[in-house]
């Protein structure tokens, strides 16, 4: 899987017409990255148990509370927990690139951001194929809407993400390796509308430079 270069260039700012030289540089970095690092993911299916404060993943103590979970999962009987990462190898590459060439390092970082999202997309396709006849909600992550970041350790524990993927959660709920994502995807027997695309749902909405300039990244 090659990182999406347009996506990576969007993360690097600077408008809609990147110079050809930069595009070529990004393409070379993307190729080098893909040769060394591919996203890895794991997921697990849980029946959802409705409780007063939210949805509990059956067989665990994990409770998805708040309005985001309420809205996203209202028509779902089951949910998938997903974790995806580029691993520490990516961070090592960025560290090494920073010591050699900072400009290249930020391109690599942007390519990594694109690649881990693509890994989630692939996992989502895998999940959809695995449960024909069921409809998937958009995936949503701790930090989106009011789904608390503090769920991160429990999600990773239930997925055994440290052992399976090498994902660690710090005491301030950051995931390490840096390009790691956890997400919840609801499964329903009714078609699910796209709910959380767009700036209104983005964790970056207050600080995004594209948005300040009246633009959107298109997600």
């Amino acid at each position, binding site marked *: 899987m090659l990182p999406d270069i347009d996506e990576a260039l969007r993360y690097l700012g*600077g*408008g809609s017409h990147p110079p050809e030289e*930069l595009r070529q540089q990004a393409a070379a970095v993307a190729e080098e990255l893909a040769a060394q690092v591919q996203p890895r993911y794991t997921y697990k299916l849980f029946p959802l148990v409705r409780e007063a404060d939210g949805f509990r993943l059956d067989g665990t103590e994990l409770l998805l509370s708040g309005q985001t979970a309420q809205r996203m999962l209202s028509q779902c009987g089951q949910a998938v927990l997903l974790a995806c990462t580029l691993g520490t190898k990516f*961070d090592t590459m960025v560290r090494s690139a920073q*010591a050699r060439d900072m400009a290249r390092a930020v391109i690599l970082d942007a390519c990594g951001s694109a690649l881990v999202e693509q890994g989630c997309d692939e996992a989502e396709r895998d999940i959809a194929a695995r449960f024909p006849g069921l409809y998937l909600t958009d995936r949503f992550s701790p930090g989106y809407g009011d789904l608390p970041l503090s769920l991160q350790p429990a999600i990773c524990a239930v997925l055994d993400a440290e*052992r399976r*993927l090498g994902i660690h959660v710090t005491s*301030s709920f950051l995931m390490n390796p840096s390009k790691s994502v956890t997400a919840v995807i609801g499964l329903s027997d009714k078609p699910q509308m796209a709910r959380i695309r767009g700036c209104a749902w983005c964790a970056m909405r207050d600080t995004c430079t594209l948005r300040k300039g009246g633009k959107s990244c298109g997600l």
Partner: protein
Amino acid sequence: MAFDFFDPTREFLILDGAMGTVLQQRGLPPGGQPELLNLTDPALLRSVYEEYIQAGSQVIYANTFGANGLKLARTGHSVEEIVTAAISITKESAAGTGVRVALDMGPLGELLEPMGTLPFERAYELFREMAMAGEKAGADLVAIETMTDLYETKAALLAVKENTSLPVLVTMSFEERGRTFTGCTVSAMARTLEGLGADAIGLNCSLGPDKLAPLLAELCRNTRLPVVAKPNAGLPDPVDGHYDMGPEAFAAALLPCVEAGVTVVGGCCGTSPEYIRRLKAALAGKTPAPRTYDDTCCVCTPVTTCRLDGVRVIGERVNPTGKKRFQQALLENDLDYILDVAIQQEDAGADILDVNVGFPGVDEVAMLPRVVKHLQSALSLPLQLDSSNPAALEAGLRVYNGKAAVNSVNGEAEVLDRILPIVKKYGAAVVGLTLDKGGIPQSAEQRVAIARRILDAALSYGIPREDVWIDCLTLTVSAQQEQAAETLKAVHAVRHELGLQTVLGVSNISFGLPNRPLITQSFLTQAMYAGLTLPIINPNQKAMMDAIAAFRVLSGEDAQCQAYIDRFAEESAPAAAPAASGSMTLEDAIVRGLQADAAALAKAALETEEELSLVENRLIPALDLVGERYEKGKAFLPQLLGAAQAAQAVFEVIRTSIAQKGGTPVKKGRLVIATVHGDIHDIGKNIVRTVLENYGYEVLDLGRDVPPEVIVKTVAEHDIHLVGLSALMTTTLPAMEETIRQLRALPQPPVTFVGGAVVTPEYASQMGADYYAKDARQSVEIARKVLG
């Protein structure tokens, strides 16, 4: 009687299977902390152990995998309490059966530096606490398992070896492509852990025995130790969590591992007592397979193993001798300069880097480990630690990740007795110089005699023969012409009669002669023909690397001449941009991010212009131009950084020029930057630093996850007037606020500016920061206002 992995009365040793899987089958919810069961449900644990013992396990692992101080911190229970309870339950189960009890130590749950923020020394303390509690409670051995980081594994192994007398079995988890999550290879694991004194090593978890078999075969070739296999029952299903390999298939798939040389077996995730029973049955009547050890010397880092089966280049440039700029970097603690010197050698094709930081005014015992850590954070090559100070060597070897080399000892008994025990303890290779109290012997025979003495001493300390490298010493040919031939003769004898690796710093040969490269290159070629395997050279000198490339063709090492052809194919390609050509100005070169051109143009400019004027009148206006374009959304971040790096190349020219004249460096003003406590993502802060430095500011970068107290202390000690703080996550904004609060409480509070993904101008003012910087460019504006 102490437990012995090599007990000749036992052909195979059978370990236990999974604990977590069995507990989950009995209703323990996933994601809980199973170590607490040692207090709450000993009967459940005992029933599992008893089943494993009945199935044939000869060693059972106590339920202590995650019983470390980090993971237990929130439970209200101490490590000693849990470990003592766990060992006693396990011992009760094993009583009267002859079955041995292992203290189980898994990963700590936080990544070590440089991947995470847990220091190596802290990891060591956490493992030490467990190991000591385990021995006290009566464990027969220690099992370090499911490790993916070689550095963390080293901390655990050292903690056991230094604080207990228990034997220790170490297993790591690999992916199918032969790497752990952190990139460690099988050979690096084997070479490092055997050197550090593990009693048995192997693989556990992650995959089924079928997928682990080729990796186990590789492991068997790379170690003399007993090899352990404790695989999963295949792969888990994401929907129901069941593993796809049944007991019968598991036992059958383990047999090829046994045929490859594995003698210690058990199961990991997904296995149960039934798997162990089948495994035991499958082993009945089998005998251990013969093993062949590859005794070629290897030095390594986790990701790169350098196997000494041909000529390997040791880069000599990380050394202050005769280099003013390097000396200045050492005195100023400028580790990035040292890293840069190292990176250039890696990129030029060095295989191993010599690291020497000895210089008057430098505390080598503190500096060597710091430099080792810093180099290993961004480099993948093995290092050769070069010092005559035993304390510095020990400090450096202790924090080195992998198997290093030590340079050097000589034939003096006192030196050998001081250094060789350290070399043995940390499993390093060692360079022996063929000189002694009497100086450098004049004849080859006498030098070979010293080499023999060094070899014998090393062997007597238990250092394997292949890890002894001999330096027969190069003397200056213009002063002692007959000595060149003696050196070559000695190299030949050490290589071909003693069969040892040979080291030689070759450039000394040509001192005092015109056209030095010709003499050095000719001598290098002759020496390689005589048997030199480890030339110490400057790999940035193309003539030397060319001679080695040619030698590898002629010796047959470079199969089909492929490396040679590739080397010169690259060279004949047209250069991208001819340096400092025609009409390009210094400003153009900076704006376009052309580092080599910028440096060349700066050098030329310095012939007519003062350093300071070059910075003020040409460099900074050029940077401003790109900065303004970036601000208007007309340039991308990489372009801004490209210009900054070209400016950095210019600064390097200026620094060198000033260092040569002995003047004071150009510095505009000093500030502190840091990523706040709890935050580990620091590329944004590093971008700010790159840009600020290339405007001439001196940036004290305190790194990431920096506690407020450290920032406050630095500000007070260094009389700092400006502090930049970065935070990426909402969860770390409180740490930013606290840092600002503490800074404002200082008698002379510095000006603060903040930035990072989640920081807004509103948050900034609420927190009491003086400025909000939306990007690196704005931080320059702020620095200008505050520092000028």
